[in-house]
């Protein structure tokens, strides 16, 4: 292969000798110490500052600062820029510092873990960081794997070891090793690939005693796993510390930005342009003024040597850049970060997203994406582990025409099964699995009373399977099932007294109602996709030959003896009922065999199984011969348990106009079945398209026929009459995702209410997400729990990981994580919506207040000869964003709620504005600009007109610059504060406190700064002495403030009122309606009863039959690799899809 080739030509090939530190150290391989921290004590300040100044906003402020230091330009004192800049820098500095301290702590913790290392033939305890490449380490049960190890030996039989890929109780996967070497004397040499991040590949050789062995991934144990159920194992360190695959994979996460971020960047660019535009106008004005007026004013204000009108205009341009810089306020970025962080904490703190059973709270792992949660248009969901629990439970069965498993009350009414429903006590059976629950007493009674059919039923379940049993301690059985369905059936048999205990290639040992019984296993007629059934032929201790068969009902029915026809009818009814409930059903049948007949068949079977050509087909025919004239026993129904609240959640999200696509590795039938049981596909849908073609042309045809038939040829328009569903399999998807067919796929898919893609690879999952992202310009969310979802989680705008289930892979690469799919509705409909609302309100208000603030300067330019004179006191300019208006707007954007969470759930339609970008867009920005323009006109010209020719009530001056500045800034602050009040929907005490507090602080600070003391101490910094005292006691000042406030606010109120009356949004309606408390969320029926026949409960790959009979069955093909870290897109589906039912 290509990789192998690369490996051989690579000069960086790794070469190491076991137990030979001197030799290994000569290569200077990294040791096992890791360093994730970025700084140390000395580098922190310079490095961090250097990084910070690389940010555009900070660099811009340094540029402003430099401008301010040029006396000819400086229109503001240096502190107006330095104070905010320092504040911003120090906040970031503090945050980075605390992050890095945490990283240092984690590093220290990990580096100081102890492990036993074999040094000079003795085991010594060493710190992890001192472990070198080439060392042999001994791991004990439940220990973390120290580094990437080459497995040498283990305590378990056949040198198997078990590992867990995550700290949580998740997948225990086993892996086996070939060599049992006397490790103490090992002197092997390993040559292998250089460090890389491929988790699924390892190439290398081990040379030992002259022999060379090839090494592959199966023999490598990766750092990040935990040893489980294995007493000890030895391993040779191949990669240490930073070279391990875990570390090589980390730190490469994609940096996601929200659409608002992108919009903000565009707007900031626009604002820069706008700033330049304003400054240009003002500097042209200055040139004209200087030319016409300034020349004549030279008498009073001589120019500097060599200065003329054009130089003055040039300098004025920069002076105005400084003054008007508040349109791009530095505090914007800091505030955005703060409020996102706040909203992230609310997600972490939400008890309604906390899962009690697994003690898992929701977690916002990325704190910069919150508002995008309010804009989701497409959800891509994994199935297993996300929608379903990946737990199969034996739920119902029909034995000899009698249906069991339904719980009825005394009146004979069907009862909903809940946590509280009384469970059957299986204590009479010492081997019973305590986790198994069943609620129908009749079945136990039937077993106990010795009903032969019931016993045969469970005997069949206990015999006809390929499950393997493990009994570590007496009576503690652990089943290794190839599919959870099988496991569920065998466990059911176990609890009802037919305990499958162990097997050898030739026998199956049961404990039948307490009596150990051993059956001779004569043949396993294994499952495959065509046969859709499996059979076993066993000889009972009494010597009776029996064939037990289970399979899809239709298949079994074809092979029944005519005598079973009556039973068949009854059973079919039951099967329909089960299927309607979304259960996965199997029909069970048996047949007693004749010794002679069997011997003959066995010969032919032997012939077929040894033939070299066409063996499969021949075997199938042979099987067909004996699997006939069966006698029906009944049917079993297994529930593929959905996570709690999945159908309701999907219904809610659909109401919020969010499209849900299920992308699963499962087979089509299973996926469809789940589609129905969780309400995505519905009986009343007009049609469900199924695309399952094998060539590109066929796929194109199938897609086209849907399109042309529906006459929908627009990509954007998704409105079609009636509801449709689309089911497409992975094979077709591969073709459909090709460039020329993508759009057709998308068109068809967007017509449909529900889309289900089955048998998809992780890469395809990501491609589908990418396709929608690219062509629909919509915000996407991917939710999943397994390693196979990682690529899609990383591709989508928002990745959500289900935590506490199978492993941490998905969670580690996700942006948000929680324990249950149903929390998604709260995350989106409540937190997402609020975050979006808050962010938009924040931005709207923030831009409004800053534009208004700045435009007043612009208007004043026309009265002060465009000389870049500020309207406000410099201190006001410094503190406006940082102190006077900072907290109220943060309070607004952290606490605001338009309606509370119950109403949000009641009306999922409230979610729509986010999807349509209604609250903050370029249009909204333009409106803000106009609004600010109006407000600034009011805020400048009203005080101007009121003050320009007036005096105090004692005849003294009030039209002076300082009084006017105070008046203008007070008008501005009060007007924007009232505007803030108008924007606030949810007045908590904190909001009140912030708003009133900020206003009081303004007056307090103003009076302080304009006081005698301040002036006498810092004469040149506080020249406004006495201004507050002399002008704020004047009635006309307050009359002016009142007038400007009214004129700024009332138009807004009138406009909003008119819109509420004329074109109320859903939001307005709900807000108006909410005087009435919302009704409690209604209970959804657990299942819809439908007539659809559900899929049969079998796995979709060939069974374990061969293994079971081969005698090598302990050597299970590696079930799972430790895919515990973020994966690269190139990973193969085979290795990741293992959690679907194989």
């Amino acid at each position, binding site marked *: 292969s290509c990789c192998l080739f690369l490996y051989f030509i690579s000069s960086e090939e790794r070469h190491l000798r076991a137990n030979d530190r001197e030799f290994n150290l000569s290569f200077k391989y990294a040791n096992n110490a890791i360093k994730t921290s970025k700084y140390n004590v000395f580098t922190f300040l310079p490095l961090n500052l250097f990084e910070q100044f690389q940010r555009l906003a900070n660099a811009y402020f340094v540029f402003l600062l430099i401008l301010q230091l040029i006396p000819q330009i400086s*229109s503001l004192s240096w502190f107006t820029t330095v104070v905010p800049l320092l504040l911003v820098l120090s906040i970031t500095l503090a945050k980075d510092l605390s992050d890095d301290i945490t990283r240092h702590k984690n590093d220290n913790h990990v580096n100081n873990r102890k492990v036993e290392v074999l040094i000079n033939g003795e085991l010594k305890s060493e710190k992890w960081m001192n472990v070198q490449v080439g060392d042999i380490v001994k791991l004990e049960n439940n220990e973390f794997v120290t580094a990437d190890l080459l497995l040498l030996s283990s305590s378990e039989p056949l040198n198997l070891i078990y590992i867990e890929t995550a700290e949580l109780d998740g997948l225990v996967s086993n892996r086996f090793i070939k060599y049992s070497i006397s490790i103490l004397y090992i002197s092997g040499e390993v040559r292998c690939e250089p460090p890389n991040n491929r988790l699924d590949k390892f190439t290398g050789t081990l040379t030992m005693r002259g022999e060379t062995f090839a090494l592959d991934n199966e023999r490598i144990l990766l750092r990040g796993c935990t040893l489980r159920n294995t007493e000890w194992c030895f391993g040779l360190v191949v990669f240490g510390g930073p070279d391990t695959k875990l570390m090589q994979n980390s730190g490469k996460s994609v940096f996601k930005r929200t659409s608002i971020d992108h919009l903000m960047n565009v707007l900031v660019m626009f604002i820069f342009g706008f700033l330049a535009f304003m400054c240009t106008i003002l500097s042209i004005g200055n040139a004209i003024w200087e030319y016409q*007026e300034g020349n*004549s*004013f030279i*008498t*009073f*204000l001589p120019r500097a040597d060599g200065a003329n009108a054009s130089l003055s205009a040039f300098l004025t341009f920069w002076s105005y850049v400084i003054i008007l810089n508040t349109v791009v306020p530095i505090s914007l970025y800091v505030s955005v970060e703060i409020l996102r962080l706040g909203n992230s904490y*609310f997600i*972490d*703190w*939400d*008890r*309604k997203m906390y899962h*009690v059973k697994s*003690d898992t709270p929701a*977690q916002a*792992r990325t704190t910069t994406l919150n508002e995008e949660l309010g804009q989701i248009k497409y959800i891509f969901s994994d199935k297993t582990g996300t929608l379903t629990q990946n737990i199969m439970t034996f739920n119902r069965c029909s034995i000899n025409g009698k249906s069991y498993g339904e719980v009825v009350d005394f009146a004979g009414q069907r009862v909903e099964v809940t946590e509280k429903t009384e469970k059957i006590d299986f204590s009479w059976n010492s081997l019973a699995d305590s986790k198994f629950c069943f609620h129908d007493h009749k079945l136990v009674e039937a077993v106990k009373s010795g009903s032969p059919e019931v016993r045969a039923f469970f005997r069949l379940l206990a015999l006809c399977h390929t499950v393997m049993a493990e009994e570590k301690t007496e009576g503690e059985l652990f089943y290794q099932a190839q599919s959870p369905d099988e496991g569920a059936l065998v466990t059911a048999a176990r609890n009802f007294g037919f305990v499958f205990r162990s097997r050898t290639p030739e026998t199956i040992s049961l404990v039948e109602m307490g009596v150990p019984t051993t059956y001779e296993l004569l043949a396993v007629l294994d499952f495959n996709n065509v046969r859709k059934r499996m059979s076993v032929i066993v000889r009972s201790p009494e010597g009776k030959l029996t064939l037990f068969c289970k399979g899809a009902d239709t298949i079994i029915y074809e092979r029944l003896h005519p005598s079973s026809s009556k039973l068949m009818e009854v059973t079919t009814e039951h099967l329909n009922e089960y299927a309607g409930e979304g259960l996965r059903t199997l029909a069970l049948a048996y047949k007693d065999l004749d010794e002679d007949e069997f011997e003959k068949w066995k010969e032919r079977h032997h012939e077929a199984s040894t033939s070299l050509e066409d063996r499969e087909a021949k075997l199938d025919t042979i099987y067909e011969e004996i699997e006939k004239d069966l006698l029906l026993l009944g049917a079993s129904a297994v529930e593929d348990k959905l996570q709690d609240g999945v159908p309701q959640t999907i219904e809610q999200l659909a109401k919020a106009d969010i499209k849900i696509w299920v992308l699963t590795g499962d087979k089509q039938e299973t996926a469809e079945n789940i589609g129905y049981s969780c309400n995505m596909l519905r009986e009343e849908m007009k049609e469900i398209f199924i695309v399952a073609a094998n060539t590109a042309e066929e796929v194109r045809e199938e897609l086209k026929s849907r399109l042309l038939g529906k006459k929908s040829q627009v990509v954007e328009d998704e409105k079609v009459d009636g509801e449709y569903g689309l089911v497409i399999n992975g094979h077709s998807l591969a073709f459909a995702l090709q460039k020329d067919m993508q759009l057709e796929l998308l068109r068809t898919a967007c017509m449909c209410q529900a889309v289900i893609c089955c048998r998809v690879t992780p890469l395809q999952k990501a491609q589908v997400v990418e396709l929608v992202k690219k062509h629909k310009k919509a915000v996407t969310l991917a939710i999943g729990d397994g390693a196979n979802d990682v690529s899609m989680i990383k591709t989508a705008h928002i990745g959500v990981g289900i935590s506490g289930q199978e492993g941490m892979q998905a969670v580690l690469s996700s942006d948000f994580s929680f324990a249950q799919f149903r929390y998604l509705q709260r995350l989106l409909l409540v937190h997402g919506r609020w975050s979006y609302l808050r962010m938009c309100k924040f931005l709207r208000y923030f831009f409004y207040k800053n534009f208004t603030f700045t435009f007043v300067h612009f208007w004043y330019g026309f009265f*002060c*000869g465009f*000389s870049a*004179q500020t309207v406000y006191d410099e201190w006001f300019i410094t503190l406006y964003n940082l102190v006077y208006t900072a907290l109220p707007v943060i309070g607004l954007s952290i606490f605001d*709620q338009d309606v509370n969470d119950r109403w949000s759930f009641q009306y999922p339609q409230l979610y729509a504005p986010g999807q349509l970008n209604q609250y903050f867009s370029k249009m909204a920005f333009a409106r803000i600009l106009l609004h600010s323009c109006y407000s600034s006109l009011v805020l400048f010209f009203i005080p101007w007109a*009121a003050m*320009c020719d*007036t*005096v*105090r*009530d004692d*005849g*003294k*001056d*009030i*039209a*002076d*610059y300082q*009084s006017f500045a105070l008046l203008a800034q007070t008008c501005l602050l009060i007007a924007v504060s009232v505007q803030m009040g108008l924007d606030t*929907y949810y*007045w*908590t*005490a*904190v909001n009140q406190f912030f708003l009133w507090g900020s206003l009081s602080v303004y007056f307090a600070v103003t009076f302080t700064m304009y006081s005698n003391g301040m002036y*006498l101490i810092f*004469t040149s910094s506080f020249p406004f*002495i006495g201004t507050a005292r*002399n002008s704020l006691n004047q009635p*006309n000042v307050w*009359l002016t403030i009142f*007038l400007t406030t*009214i004129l700024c606010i*009332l138009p807004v*109120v*009138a406009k*909003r*009122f*008119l819109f*509420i*009356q004329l074109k*109320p949004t859903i939001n307005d*309606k709900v807000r*108006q309606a909410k005087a009435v408390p919302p009704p409690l969320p209604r209970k959804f029926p657990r299942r819809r009863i439908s007539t659809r026949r559900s899929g049969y409960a079998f796995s979709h790959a060939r069974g374990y039959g061969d293994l079971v009979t081969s005698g090598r069955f302990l050597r299970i093909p590696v079930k799972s690799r430790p895919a515990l870290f973020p994966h690269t897109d190139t990973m193969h589906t085979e290795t990741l899809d293992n959690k679907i039912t194989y």
Partner: protein
Amino acid sequence: MGKKQAGTGPLSRRPDNSAFKQQRLPAWSPSLTPQTVLPTFYILSLVCLLLGIWLLITVEYTYELKVDYTDAGTCEQCFNLRKHAIDSSTPCKCTVSFHVPKTFPGDVFFYYGLRNFHQNLRRYMDSRDDAQMVGRKNNLKAPSSYCAPFDYDANGKPIAPCGAVANSMFNDSLTVMYNPTDGSKIQVPLYRKGIAWYTDKNVKFRNPPTNNTFSLQQAFEGTTRPLYWQRPVYELDDIDSNNNGFINDDLIVWMREAAFPNFKKLYGVLNRAQGPFTEGLPAGNYTLSINYNFPVEPFRGRKELVISMVTWFGGQNYFLPIAYLVTSGLILVTAVVLTTVFVKVGKKGKNMEE
């Protein structure tokens, strides 16, 4: 974020059930309902109307008179003389007659007004040294560089007060004569002190320390007067020696720069102690005689004498009453429109249906 809470137990990581963390803080959520919005509009309209009327009535009973003396009367000659600021040493006197149609009852204030004089230019406003004018000795002899080029004279002597603002101080002196019908001439007595802010007079502006033996003149030893001034700062007022130096009222008034290019500054307040002025400024003919020093021709400005009264809410000003009346009207119109819309559309509640 990924913080793991300390502690163990089955529910150790359960978030606190506090109103804050669960976003259930008690709150008031007002909304724009017709019941709140419409009455607010009507009430505000009424408030503005009443305020407007009150202000208007107040203003109607106060008067203001402006006498532009730039080149009026006999001042044309002085105006031309002052075209070139260099000729400031030649004194020039002129008179302008004017008529007061109605008696100004009560306190009357005399202002000098300047038009098109930009006291609000950034470089102009920066060109002063507050530290010097608060009487600091160091700054007196070493004015701030902001004052350049009015910080040192050609001989390198520090200027006190330094800077363009002080340098360009208004230096016309105005005398108003009342000409009753009997042909006599009575000088209108003015208080020329107490015309500045208390804080300016007492805190912001201070003379360098003096005492009985150390006169103000000595305190200013080593400094020179601003270029355009005829007298040094310690001789600004030759009548009242306490009104000299940086605490001279006219200087203080001037140093409080105007926000806009057209402004008026207080010159004096009518002394109603005696004569015909006890009730205010009687109607009749007046003569304004001017020591015409301040050049306005270079910047195409105008100078005027403003005689005005004040009201309870501030200076005589028609803007506020009219603005309030107009606003009241606008609010009323809006309120009527909103009411109409509400009655036609909103009341039926149709728009609120799902």
